[in-house]
Structure formats: C-alpha cells, structure tokens
C-alpha cells in the first residue's frame, strides 16, 4: 500500500493542502510523508484551531483572569501558546488559577463543585468541538450553574478554505479535507471547492491506511481532472453529517465574522453565543480593556497558514522560535505545522 504511494508517477509537480492540523501531524507521525512520490508536496492549511486564533483572544482571556480573578479552564492545547505579552503557562506561574480539562463538561463540573469561583472556559475549536461546548452551555443553564461562562473563539472551516481560494496567493491542486469536522457538517458544505473552484477533494480519516489511500485517490483525481468531493472516511462521515450536533450548535451559537491569524476577518466564519445564552458569555460578563495586541515582526505564522510558505521558510524557525520558547502558535500547538516540522522534520 505504501509502495502504491511511493511509486506513483506524477505528470507534473503537485501541491495538495491538508486543511486539518491533525492530518499535518499524522502525516509525519505515521511516516507516510516519508513515502511520498517525487514532486508531491503537502501544503499545511489553516486547520489548527490554536494556530488560527489571533493573539487578542488569549490577551483578553488573560486580562479577564487578572482583573476579575476568574479560574481559567482550558483544553491542554492552549496552555503554552504565546499571547502578546504572556501565556497561560506563564500566568499560572504567577498565580492565575488554571484548570486543564479533557472535556468542556469537566470544566462545567469543576464550576459545579467550586461554586465560590468564577470558571471561564476557553471555547476554541472547529465544528467538531463547538457542539461539545454548546452542550456545556445548555447544561449550565439547565442546572443553573451561574459561575460558569465561556470565552467564544470558535471557528468554521469552509469559509476559511473559501477565503484562501479567493485570495489565490498560492497554487493548490487539491484538498485533503478534515474527517472529524466533516463528521459534523457532512460533505455538502465542501462541494463549492470542487464545483466552483475546480479542485478535487477527499475527506480523509486519520489512520496510515486512510492517509495513504486518500492521497493516492486525490492524486489520481487531479490527474483525471475529476473535480468532485470524495468521501474517503465513510465509516464515520455521513453525506449529511450529524444534524443533531448542528442543531445543538446553532441553538447556542450563531455565525459571526471572525478574525483568523494571517488571513484576517472572514465573514460568517466564527461562532458567538446567541442572546438567549448571553449570561454565559465571559466577554460580556467580564468587561476588560486588554492592551493592544502585538506580534513579533518576523513571525510568519500568518503566511504559513495561508499556504504561502512551509515552516522552514520562516527566518525565525528553529532559531528565535523553538517549541520551548515559541514566538508564534504554529511552533507550540501540538498540531502546529512548525512544531511538526521542528520535531519530525529532521529525518
């Protein structure tokens, strides 16, 4: 099977984008990148939620914790990410209360048993994660757990892919689409990529087997100019996705414009709490005036997330920016492209 990939003959150099950050990492971890045929390159997409979250989100979270003394509950992914002036790990060392959780419901439970503290959950993630956070908010209301709130930073992936295609800054011949996002939204929301932009797409799973077969299929589809969305992860992804999950998500959240690192503001690409759940919105409950965000002038995370460069194309990569002292989030997120290149790229 791996030989099938390695021995593919390409008529020309091909550039395929894996949108999902977990795919970025798994292509390395599984060794599948190692058996790519000559001339095939993988362009990392904007699919790491930690990476695309701009500095002002964490700046606000940290300012809320400082000013209002809230306990911050978060997925482990966010802990080491640099903000403009600090990071959650650094704030913890100077007294901020930080609770690392596996599920938004764990954060809710922490709030339920610690009624004397305000618990703010950092609600980040794409369509896969947003429904889990929506359930937590619904349960908080049902159970009247009023010391729980979330700071909305959720994002939707198809608008970001559309923004990249519209910008047209880099050539992409086809897309490996995110498997677990698609489990929620289905295949339909991706059809525009194939039909309006004429790029073949494969929704892929995460096993070595999935990575290999999806890549082979995508290369073939590009060669045959078969501009369709193929579902290579049918054991999990239904064409219509998971309607119940979307119903819960859109009961709690509504679409709003969102700021993506590197890409800028994309209309309809974010999620905000609906007015009915406004009481659980940390941004409204805890007003703050965070200092103006700043960014290292040499950091090229933005260019990277737009597919313009690969990590080694950034002047800071591996020198001023390393995982233990990261300048940008792509170096520190477990599925950030720079982190993957730094850790696994030296082979």
């Amino acid at each position, binding site marked *: *099977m*791996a*030989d099938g990939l390695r021995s593919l003959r390409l008529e020309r150099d091909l550039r395929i984008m894996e949108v999902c*950050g*977990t795919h970025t990492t798994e292509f*390395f*971890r*599984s*060794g*599948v*990148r*190692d*058996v790519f045929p000559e001339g095939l390159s993988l362009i990392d997409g904007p699919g*790491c*939620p*930690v990476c695309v979250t701009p500095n002002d989100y964490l700046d606000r979270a940290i300012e809320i914790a400082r000013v209002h003394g809230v306990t911050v509950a978060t*997925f*482990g*992914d966010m*802990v*080491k990410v640099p903000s403009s002036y600090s990071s959650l*790990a*650094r704030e*913890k*060392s*100077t007294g901020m209360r930080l609770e*690392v*959780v*596996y599920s938004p419901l*764990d954060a809710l439970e922490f709030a339920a048993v610690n009624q004397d503290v305000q618990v703010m959950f950092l609600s980040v*993630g794409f369509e896969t*994660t947003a429904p889990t956070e929506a359930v937590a908010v619904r349960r908080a209301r049902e159970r009247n757990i009023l010391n729980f709130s979330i700071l909305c930073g959720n994002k939707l992936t198809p608008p970001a892919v559309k923004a990249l295609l519209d910008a047209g800054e880099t050539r992409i011949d086809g897309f490996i689409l995110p498997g677990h996002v698609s489990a929620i939204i289905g295949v339909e929301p991706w059809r525009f990529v194939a039909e309006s932009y004429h790029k073949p797409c494969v929704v892929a799973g995460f096993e*070595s087997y999935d990575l*290999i077969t999806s890549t082979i299929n995508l290369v073939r589809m590009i060669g045959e100019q078969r501009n369709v969305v193929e579902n290579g992860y049918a054991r999990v992804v239904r064409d219509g996705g998971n309607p119940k999950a979307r119903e819960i998500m859109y009961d709690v959240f509504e679409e709003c414009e969102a700021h993506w690192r590197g890409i800028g503001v994309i209309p309809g690409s974010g999620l905000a709490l609906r007015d009915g759940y406004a009481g659980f919105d940390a941004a409204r409950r805890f007003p703050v005036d965070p200092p103006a965000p700043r960014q290292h002038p040499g950091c090229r995370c933005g260019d990277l997330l737009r597919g313009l460069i690969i990590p080694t194309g950034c002047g800071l990569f591996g020198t001023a920016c390393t*995982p*233990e*002292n990261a300048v940008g989030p792509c170096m520190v*997120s*477990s*599925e950030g492209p720079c982190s993957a290149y*730094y*850790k*696994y*790229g*030296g*082979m």
Partner: protein
Amino acid sequence: MADRILSGHGSGGKLMNEMIGGLIRRVLGPESVQLDDSAVLSVGAGKIAFTTDTFTITPIEFPGGTIGSLAVNGTVNDLAVMGARPLYLSCALILEEGLETAVLERILISMRGAADRAGVSIVTGDTKVVERGKADKIFINTAGIGILERAVQRRPIVPGDAVIISGFIGDHGIAIMALRNDLSFSRGLVSDCAPMNRLVDKVLAAFPESVKFMRDPTRGGVASVLNEIVQGMDFGIGLAETSLPLRDEVKGVSGMLGIDPLYAANEGKVLMVVRGEEAGGIVDLMRSHPEGKDAAVIGTVSDTYPGRAYLETPTGGRRILPLLIEEQLPRIC
C-alpha cells in the same frame, strides 16, 4: 533560560536540561548534578554510588503503589543502573499540616514493603511539617548508597548494538494520567513501580561483558533516555514501532488523551544497550525473572541517522523521536 520557573522545568525535557546546565551547574559547579543517575565516589579502597531524588505526585496513592514505594524504588533503581548494589537509604518527609495519619501509615507500610523487596535498609531520616497549602499532602526525599562490587567500565556503543526494555512501556505515567482524567479500567492498568536491582544483578552476573548502558526510563520516558544516548554521537537509534511492548490500556489512554507512551514515565523498568550478539540471550534471561517477564529487544544502534532517535513505522516510514520539550498535557487536537 526563562525568567520564572515553569512546571515544564520539572518534566525531564529540554527545559530541565537548560535549568541544570544554565543555572544549577553554573552556580554549584559541574559536579553538582550528575548526568548519570548517581555519583560514583572512592571510599578507602572501594567505590560507592551515591544518589538522591525527591518525589511529588498526585495522587499520592495509586494502583500499583504509593509515593512511598515510588521513593524507595526510584532511588534503588538509580543505584542499580549504575551497576551498584543498593544498601542504605535515607528518608526525609515533608508533611502538609492536616494529612491523615492513616494515610501516612499506609505510605510508610508501602515504603517498608518496597525496601524489603529490594533488600535495602532505611537507616536515617527527617520529618518536617509545613502549613496547610505550603505542600501538597506529602513530599518525600530519599538518598541512597550502593556499593560498586564489579568494575564498571564504560564500553563504547557501536552500530549493531541492541536496545532492550525489561517490560511494558509507559505503565506508570499513563496510569497516573488516566487517574487524573477520570478514566477507569476494566483490566487493571497499574503503575509498574518496582525495584530493578535483582534483575540488573542477574543480567550483569551472566553477561558481564555485554551491557554497555543502563538507565531507568522514569520522567521523560524511553524516548528521552534514547535522546540522551545519541546526542552528539556518530550513531543513531531506531526503534521498530511494531516491536514495542505496549499494554492495550496504555494504547487506549494514550490515544484518548493525545499523549505518547514513549514519553511517559516508567518506575519499574530498565533500558539497556547491549552487544547485538547477546541481546537474545539477555532478553531470555530477563524473561525468566518476574520483573523482566515481558522484556523485548525494541531497537538497534545504527549509523544511518547519527545523533537521532527515531521510530520505524509500519508504513515503512520513519519519524524522529525528538527530545521532549515540556510536560505532556491532555489535548483534543
């Protein structure tokens, strides 16, 4: 280094190495922190190994042990992997005001049990009680002395040598991680906390010329030890992913929390680099011993990728096992 100590400075990776090299050794002198597990000292005509270690863990009691048995086995193993016969331990307890006496008694009983199993005596100690909130229930420091009866000589590691692990990888670290994240088990995942001195002794007695390197892969796990071995060397170490002894439960928890068992702590394992010719014989011998019944050859030394520890994946690809940067946290992406 960073201007404040972060929790990552304690996790056995790059940050800790920076702190040791850039601060502790600089101030206290190059001898103050041994890269090996123990210091070797001349006393009269003989040689002893001397080591110390401090233990903090949440929770303090867990399936397979307590902070007490951990403190005994950790120090015993540090001595054993130097080729020393562990003899005497000290035990210093820092107790948080309010700790239940019954809990302390259980911890002491497990210390005693571990010491008996390893054949060492706890000969001196100290206790301090600190105000509530100034410690997390109990911290334990143990120091240990062992006697070096065999002439331990360093033998150069060369391509063709084999890497052996004495049993399942990552049991302790993953069991603790699972406890902290409310994962339960139907077929016991327990800490591997155990003394290695008898197993090591058996191997050294039967194969006195074969063993080139020994280490107990605690904090930072197997991958960190391998990195330590290959760093700056003209050889690399490749592990075959399919040969790694991993319990199903360890695979399950690792997948769920997004962590890598090769970086998880082991508290009852020894990793050896041995001459390739004797690797099979050493594994067979280990397997006849209760502490080594799941021993396996997991990798080989080669000159293909100098200075690198790497994994050969079932797809026929390779990936680097980088030096762990910080502690592993449960993650969702």
